[in-house]
C-alpha cells in the first residue's frame, strides 16, 4: 500500500503497524514539498508574465498602425506600404475561408477515424494506425508546406482542380483557372495538419464513453453503426468539440505552410481556386523586410488581429463547452 493511499484512509481505529506514523511524519517534514510549492509559484508567475508581456509588447508595437488607420485598419485597400494601405479584411476572409475548408475536410474524417480506431478496428490495425496519426502530428509545418508546394500543388493543378470543375453541384465553388496554389490547396494542407489533433482527442473522448451506454444501446438491438451513432458519439461530444476548437485555433494561426501553397494574392477570393492570403501568410511575407515605423507597426497590427480572432474562437469554444457540460450535469 502506498503512503498516498494511507493519507486518504480515514483515521485508523486499530493501532497502525509500528513505524508507519513515524514514516508519514518524516515524509511531511521533507523540504521537497516547500521547494515544489515555490517552483509552482515561480512557474505560474513566469507564465503569467510572459502572457502579459506578449500582449503589452504587441499592443505597443502596433499602436502606430491603429492610431494611423483607426478602425479602418480592419478592411480594404490594396496592400501598399508606400501608400499606407493594409487590406486586413482580405486576410481575415482568407483566414476564415481556409480554416472552414480545413475543418470541413478534417472534422468528418477525423471523427470517423477516431470512431474506427476505438470501436471497430482490431488491435493489429488500430495500434499502427494511431501511431501513424501521431506521426503526422510530429511533422513540422515547413515539411508539410514543402510537400504541398512540390507534390500537392502540381497534382492539384493538373488533376484534382480540373476534376472538381466538372463535378455538378459543387463546381460553382471552383470556377477560374486551376493553378495549384489556391485557397483550396491551403485548406487541404491545413486539414492534414489539424487531422491528428482531432483524431487523437476524439479518440480519447470516444474511448472514455461509459461501457454501460454502449451496452444499453446494444441491448436495445443496435447495430455497431447505431451504437456509435446513438451512444458513443453523443457521449464523446464534449471531447470532440474541444478537439475541433483546438484544431480551428491551429488552422487559423498556421503561417509558413499556408504561405507556401496559397498563392499570396491580396484579393478577396471569388472561388476556392483563387490564390489568396491569410493573416498568418501575410505576416510572414511582410515582416521580414518591413521597415521600422508604420510599415512594421501594421504587420504587428495583423498579429494583433490574428490574436484577437483566435482568442475569440477559443473563448467561444470554452463557453460552448461549459454550457454543454452544465446541461450534461443536470441530466438525470
Amino acid at each position: 500500500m502506498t503512503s498516498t493511499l494511507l493519507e486518504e484512509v480515514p483515521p485508523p481505529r486499530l493501532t497502525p503497524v509500528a513505524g508507519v506514523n513515524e514514516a508519514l511524519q518524516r515524509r511531511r517534514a521533507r523540504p521537497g514539498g516547500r521547494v515544489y510549492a515555490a517552483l509552482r509559484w515561480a512557474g505560474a508567475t513566469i507564465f503569467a508574465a510572459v502572457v502579459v508581456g506578449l500582449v503589452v509588447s504587441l499592443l505597443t508595437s502596433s499602436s502606430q498602425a491603429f492610431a494611423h488607420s483607426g478602425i479602418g485598419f480592419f478592411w480594404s485597400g490594396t496592400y501598399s506600404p508606400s501608400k499606407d494601405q493594409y487590406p486586413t479584411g482580405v486576410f481575415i476572409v482568407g483566414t476564415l475561408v481556409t480554416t472552414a475548408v480545413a475543418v470541413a475536410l478534417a472534422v468528418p474524417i477525423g471523427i470517423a477515424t477516431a470512431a474506427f480506431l476505438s470501436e471497430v478496428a482490431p488491435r493489429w490495425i488500430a495500434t499502427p494506425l494511431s501511431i501513424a496519426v501521431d506521426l503526422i502530428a510530429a511533422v513540422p509545418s515547413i515539411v508539410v508546406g514543402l510537400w504541398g508546394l512540390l507534390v500537392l500543388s502540381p497534382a492539384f493543378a493538373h488533376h484534382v482542380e480540373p476534376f472538381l470543375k466538372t463535378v455538378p453541384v459543387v463546381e460553382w465553388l471552383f470556377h477560374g483557372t486551376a493553378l495549384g496554389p489556391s485557397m483550396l490547396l491551403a485548406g487541404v494542407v491545413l486539414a492534414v495538419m489539424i487531422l491528428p489533433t482531432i483524431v487523437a482527442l476524439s479518440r480519447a473522448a470516444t474511448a472514455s464513453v461509459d461501457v454501460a451506454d454502449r451496452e444499453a444501446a446494444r441491448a436495445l438491438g443496435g447495430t455497431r453503426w447505431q451504437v456509435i451513432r446513438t451512444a458513443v458519439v453523443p457521449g464523446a461530444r464534449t471531447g470532440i468539440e474541444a478537439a475541433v476548437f483546438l484544431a480551428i485555433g491551429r488552422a487559423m494561426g498556421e503561417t509558413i505552410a499556408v504561405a507556401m501553397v496559397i498563392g499570396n494574392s491580396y484579393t478577396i477570393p471569388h472561388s476556392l481556386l483563387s490564390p489568396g492570403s491569410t493573416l498568418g501568410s501575410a505576416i510572414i511575407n511582410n515582416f521580414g523586410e518591413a521597415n521600422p515605423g508604420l510599415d512594421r507597426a501594421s504587420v504587428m497590427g495583423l498579429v494583433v488581429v490574428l490574436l484577437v480572432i483566435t482568442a475569440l474562437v477559443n473563448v467561444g469554444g470554452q463557453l460552448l463547452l461549459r454550457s454543454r457540460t452544465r446541461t450534461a450535469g443536470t441530466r438525470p
Partner: protein
Amino acid sequence: MHLPVVTGPSRRGACGPRHHRRVRGSVPVLGLALAALLVASCSSTPAASKKNPPKATTTTVTTPSATSTTAAAPAATTTTAAHAATPTTANAATAAPAAHTAATLASACSTTGGALSATCDTQSPSLQLTGAGANSIQPFFARAFYYFNQADHGVSVNYSPAGSSVGVSDIEQNTVQFGDSEIPIKTPASGTGGNILQIPVDLGGVALSYDVPGLSGGLKLDGPTLAGIFLGKITTWNDPAIAALNPGTSLPSTKIVAVHRADSSGPGYDLDQYLIDTAGTAWTSSAAGSTPSTKWPITNVGVGEQLNTGVASFIQQTQGAIGYVEYAYALQASFTNAAIENQAGAFVTPSQTSIADAGAQASNLSGSNFNIIDGPGSATYPLANFSWTLLYQKQSNTTLGVVLGKLFDWVTTTGQDQAKALGYSPLPANVVTLAHQTLLQLESSSGKALFS
C-alpha cells in the same frame, strides 16, 4: 590584391572580455537565454574552447519563418552555441584594452604583411563571424565562405540570408559583424557603431523565366509589355502586344500566369526599377508608383511565391507561367529566359557576359549611385545589380577588423571565381578597385588605419 596589415592586432582569449549582445527590445527573454549561453560556453577556459575547432563554414539556411522575426540574426548565432561567444568580442573590445596574453599569431602577421596566401593567414585567430542579409547572394556566400575557410581554417562565417533589409537593420544596430543588401544604404551611411562602409561584392542579374508550351525560346519582351503582364492587362500569350515584338513566332493562346515574390526581394526591386524606367505611366500610375520597392507593388495579380526557390518551382509546374528570379537560380533550374529590351533597343537574354557588360558600365559607384538597371550598350542586359556588403569603418576589435578586411578583400578578388562557377558575373576591375579602396578605410577603435 592583398591588404598588408599595419597595426598589430593581438590574440585575445576567445572568451575574453564579455559583452552582452544587443538584442532587440521586444525579446528580452532571448537576450537572457543568449547571455546564459555565453556564460555557459565561456565558463571553460579559453584553452578548452580552442579544442573545438571552428566548424566548416556554417551558413544558416533560415526558413522563412525565421526571417519573420526581428531576432533572426541572434537566433542564427545561437545555433552554434559553442562559438556563440566569439563574435561578441567584436562589440566588447571597447570595454577593455586588448588582452596581450596570447598576442602571437595575428601580430606575427602584422610584421610580415597580411597576404592571404602567406602562412600567417592559415593561422588567423579562430573566429566565427556573423552576418545577415540578402537571399539572392546566399549561394555565392555559402560557397565563398566555405572556400575561404579551406584557405584559412581559423575563420568561419555564419551568414543568415534573412533578406536585404534585415541585413541593413542588423548592421545599423550593430548586432552582426557584416550585413549584405541588394540595395545599399543611401550615403552617408551610419549606424550605432559609426560610419558604415559599403562594398560591392557580387554582380548578378534578374532573369524573366517562363514556361510556355510550344514556345521553346527566343521570346522578346519590352518594358510596356512586361508591365502589362504584371498588371494583369495582358492575359494570353498570343496577345497582340507580345505578337508585335515577336514577328514570325507562333504564340499559343495559353493564359499567362504572372508570378511575383511574396516576400521582399532584390530582384523585385530591380524589375520595378526597370519598369519605372521603361514602361511609362502605365506602370507608374498604377499601385506601383514611381519609387522602386523591394516589396512587389502589384499584389492582386497572379500568384505570389516565397523566395527565388518558390518562384522557380511555380514556373516549373505551371504552363503559361512567367516570373522573375535571380539569374543564378534560373541557370540552375535550366529555365528558358526572355530576351529583354535594353536602352539601345536591342533584345538581350541574361548571361554571364551580358550581365558583366551591364556591370562594366558602372562608374563612381556608391551608396547613392548604385543603379545599373537599363544601362547603355547594345549587348548589355538591362536587369543587373551589385550586391553590397556593409561593415563598420571603425572596428572596435582590431583582430576582427583585420579578418573582416581580409575576408572581403578575398571575396571581391579570388573569391569571384566561386561567383563565376554559380552563374554570377565576376566584378569588373574598377569595382574590385573600389572595393579594395573602401576596405582600406577600415580603422581600429583609436582611428588608426588597419591596412595600408
